[in-house]
């Protein structure tokens, strides 16, 4: 099975095949021979053919994968090659920027309203979580198209806050 891993702006070709009780996984031009077993409800143990092993937690939301080794967490997107083609088209046609919450929290103050002109770095709002006030700034210059939140509102991680175009 062929896949593409999208990670840090790069598209890395992947191929997975069954091989005995394990798998052969090719990442770019590197092929690994591994076995993978479940180690309780949350963890998996991945072992390479030279005996080196990793205890990792794998979590998935759609195409988004989060793999954690405890000290390091890798976030990547795994898509089939056809889906990737469609995504590329979407990326090129999208003109505006939607600013999303990088954490759950509460909007304590809004600095802008629809129609306001903003520069890159203009403070848009303050999001408070866990006793810290965090200023969210505009990633680009443009005009505020929509404000999706109001002061006092609690938002989840990834919630759409403001659209700038």
């Amino acid at each position: 099975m062929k896949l593409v891993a999208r990670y840090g702006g790069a598209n890395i070709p992947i191929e997975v095949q069954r091989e005995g009780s394990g798998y052969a996984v090719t990442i770019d031009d590197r092929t690994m021979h591994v076995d993978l077993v479940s180690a309780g409800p949350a963890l998996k143990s991945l072992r390479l053919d030279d005996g080196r092993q990793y205890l990792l937690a794998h979590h998935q939301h759609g195409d988004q994968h989060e793999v954690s080794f405890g000290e390091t967490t890798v976030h990547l997107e795994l898509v089939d090659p056809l889906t990737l083609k469609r995504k590329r088209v979407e990326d090129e046609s999208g003109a505006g920027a939607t600013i999303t919450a990088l954490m759950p929290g509460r909007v304590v103050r809004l600095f802008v309203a629809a129609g306001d002109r903003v520069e890159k770095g203009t403070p848009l709002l303050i999001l408070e979580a866990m006793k810290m006030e965090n200023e969210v700034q505009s990633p680009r210059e443009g005009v505020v198209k929509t404000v999706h939140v109001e002061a006092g509102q609690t938002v989840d991680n990834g919630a759409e806050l403001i659209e700038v175009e």
Partner: protein
Amino acid sequence: MKVLIANRGEIAVRVIRACRELGFPTVAVHSDADRAALHVLFADQSVEIGPAPSSKSYLRIDAIIDAARTTGAEAIHPGYGFLAENALFAQACIDAGMLFVGPSPDSIRAMGSKTESRQRMIAAGVPVVPGLSEAVASLSEIEAFAAEAGFPVMIKASAGGGGKGLRLVERKEDLSNAFERVKSEAKSFFGDDAVYAEKFIASPRHIEVQILGDQHGNLIHLGERECTLQRRHQKVVEESPSPVVDEAMRERLGVTAVQAGRAVNYYSAGTIEFLMGEDGDFYFLEMNTRLQVEHPVTEMVTGVDLVKEQLRVAQGGTLQLSQDQVRMSGHAIECRIYAEDSSRNFAPSPGLIRYLNLPQGPGVRNENGVYQGYTVPIHYDPMLSKLVVHGSTREEAILRMKRALSEYRVEGIDTTVPFHSFIMDHPEFRAGRFDTGFIEKILPSLNESLAQGTASFDAAVAAAAISAFEQSQNVQLPHAQDSAWRRAGRLEALGRGTR
């Protein structure tokens, strides 16, 4: 003696443990967001005292006193933060006929206002940092002080503490913005927007002394804690003893700390915080009239259970030991484990803990406030737990901490575990050479170290790809235009929540 704990999280659990060892029944209080919090599950009894925001629950004196009355609690332990340094709360406990497990309201009042405590310390002959000794009414007073003392200056909330409500200002043009921000934080966190300013000592260390007294005039010190490693003025790693304090300096620090405590007739556990310049001169910074977050490192090296001492002292008992019976043995280090993403500028990371494995083994102590399956709420401080180790030497303690951190697994939310591991490896930390600017200085190299080599990256990709492959084998295509992939993702999302 039934004890109500007016706090949440790991410190409430810590106090419950001490009560249990003394045979005291315990009562937890909680907000409606905390019904399933560990401290609530851990106590013998619990009472809901209000909605999620602290101002409507953990800071509600009337609701807490009511809870103590209805459950028949005879003593109230405030933990740290929240109402721990609120003299009105201590007085309210006493007025309701209960024991307040802490110092007298007068001691709290004297030390609680940073401006008044400075005046008291100056009068007692304890050295202080140059600064305004009174809260300022306007920006212009701070501007005048900064012009006289020179930059950098620190703007602080008079009622502040715990690293909240203060800003370092390096340039005149930043004063106004910092002044407004500190006032606003002071108002929302402490309900009091009074602020003041002081001179900032360059390249300082933050060293504090644990004191302990009873109501019969006995007051001793239990050595120092090195608390220099801070980020945004919040302590990150603490240790005892300090790598720069020798026996003679320990004696001077201890005597000065006891002198400071005596000036306010102190009893119970308290901490005198000093700022130490590169020359070894130290200045009184503030006193915390309560149990300190980092109290376990002192417990590990002295063998004294500070919480049990507090409870005995509150009952009118005498200290279990005198100054010449205090012995420091070995070295202890504490890492504060926060729900923060160290790879994303320490953004708060509340949410569901899908998996938790706490380190174990020789010399390891967890002061933990969470559990696997628990959702860390957005409303409170991000500290989840404290990891404490003890070793015979500083070197052993560092290597032990490094080993313990490698066993620490938290999945579902991000924590500062990798950050601590990075600190333990840092040659300057290992050499004991650092000041309060150390963390900011090493952060750029932290991000490089987190950006990791290809071996573990390949393993991560392989594990994810194999899972995707297995899903494609197991799941039937439901619609022609919908990939098995997307359906698998959706199933996963339904089963496991939205993160």
